[in-house]
Structures are given as structure tokens and as C-alpha cells.
């Protein structure tokens, strides 16, 4: 799983650098993001701007990552492309995550 990680303050930004989080990629995605998130103090910001396909396994992997974060650390999402946004809306998971239109908006929002 190709990820790029950047730390700034308490936030670790994880940019997914491949275009599918599907059934074939879900497990490696989950493990890689979990490992990348270890240094986060407040939140993990998952940048999905390069991802144009997420299926139910990919969605499950994103939810699984959130559930493994220590209490007090959020998983926020940014830059969802239309096919990915659709899956979050249909499953109502758009009400579970904070979803930002782009990274700049996400980084500017420092509300707890």
C-alpha cells in the first residue's frame, strides 16, 4: 500500500497514493494506515484525493482503522472523490466521520 505520511502538531496526515481501496487492498491498507498513525496525538487525517474506488471492504478497513485509534484521537477524512463520497453517503458513514472537501480546509479546522 503506497502511503505518504506527514506530521504537523498533533495531526498525522496520511495520503493514500493509489487509486483503489478495494477488497484486494483492504487488509494491507488497514495495516499500513495503522502503522502510519502511531505518532498522532490528536488526529489522523486521511487524504483520499487520489482514490477513485472504495468498496464495502475498503469502507470496513477505514472504519477498522478508526476503531483501533486510542481514545481521544480522531480519524478525519479529506478530498473524497464522487465514487468514494457515494459509498459513505449510502452507508450513512458520512455522519460518523468528519469529512473535509480538501486538505487545506481540514488543516484549518482545529476544533476538537
Amino acid at each position, binding site marked *: 500500500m503506497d502511503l505518504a505520511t506527514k506530521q504537523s502538531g498533533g495531526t498525522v496526515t496520511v495520503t493514500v497514493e493509489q487509486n483503489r481501496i478495494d477488497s484486494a487492498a483492504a487488509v494491507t491498507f488497514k495495516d499500513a494506515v495503522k502503522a502510519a498513525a502511531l505518532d498522532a496525538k490528536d488526529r489522523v487525517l486521511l487524504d483520499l484525493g487520489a482514490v477513485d474506488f472504495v*468498496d464495502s471492504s475498503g469502507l470496513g478497513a477505514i472504519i477498522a482503522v478508526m476503531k483501533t485509534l486510542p481514545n481521544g484521537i480522531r480519524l478525519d477524512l479529506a478530498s473524497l472523490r464522487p465514487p468514494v463520497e457515494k459509498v459513505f453517503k449510502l*452507508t450513512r458513514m458520512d455522519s460518523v466521520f468528519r469529512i473535509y472537501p480538501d486538505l487545506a480546509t481540514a488543516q484549518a479546522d482545529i476544533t476538537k
Partner: protein
Amino acid sequence: MTQTVGDIRLSCLSTEHGVRALLERLMPMLPDWGIGNDDAMTVELVLAETLNNIAEHAFPTQDDALIAVHLWASGDQFYVAVQDDGRAMPGLTLPKGRLPDHTVAREDLPEGGFGWFLIRSQTDRLEYRRDTSRNHLSYSIRLSRPAQPVRDCCCDTQSNALR
């Protein structure tokens, strides 16, 4: 008379990578059927859920089985028919596919159970039957605009001249 558009038969290995390869072959064809981006993403999602379910549950221990997919469009309907010789659906019925509850504590959030919800919520005419040793699953997806061939598959000189 409504024209049938597409009408192709593809198959994939009963693995997650086999499913991905089939989708990567199919998706570039859909613009030529006059299918727009919004509809194409519904088709890709629903097919992914369908085929991954078969790979996982009909062939839990078999990586070299084939799943056969027949796809066509007619008017504002996209039709999918899938066959495999794997295990039968438990009870010979399709899962209900209720949306898992999301209004729960973070540690109790569902990590699965979305697949059949996504299939059921995006399809019509959903049917499953088992004959002897074969599973037959079919459904249709409503398109936001009717499918129509954007160009001829055979590209003969006459139709090129007319374009």
C-alpha cells in the same frame, strides 16, 4: 424497439484480484455504451460487491474457479447476470442486506455487512436461483439516461464516413 447496447460476456478468477482485473477491463468500455460517470460508478460498486461476495463465500478455498458475467444495457436499464459453480447461498436465499446501525459508540461501529445493503439499494429485479450445481444471480441497475452506442464496435469505413 429499444436497442440492446454492449452485451458482453466476461469472466474472472474467484479471487479479489480476479474481480479487480475484471472491473479494470470493463470500466473503460462503459463510456462507449453511452453510460455516464455517475451510472458507471454505481455499476462498478455493485459488481464489485457481487463478485467479491461470490469469490469469498461461494469459493472460500478455491482460487482457480471462474465466475461468468454477462452484461448488457437496454434503454435506461443496465442488466447483470452472473453464474458460478461454487457453494449455494445459505438457505438458497439472498441476504436481507439491512444497513448496519451507525448510531452506536465508536468501538461498536460495524466493519462489514455493507455489501448486500449496497447491492439491494442500487438494484432492481434482483433474483437468485440454484440449479443442480450452479448459482445464477441477476439484477438490473437503473441508468440516469438511456444507454446508446457511442461508436460502432466494427468501425467500418462507411460508418466512419457518416460520423
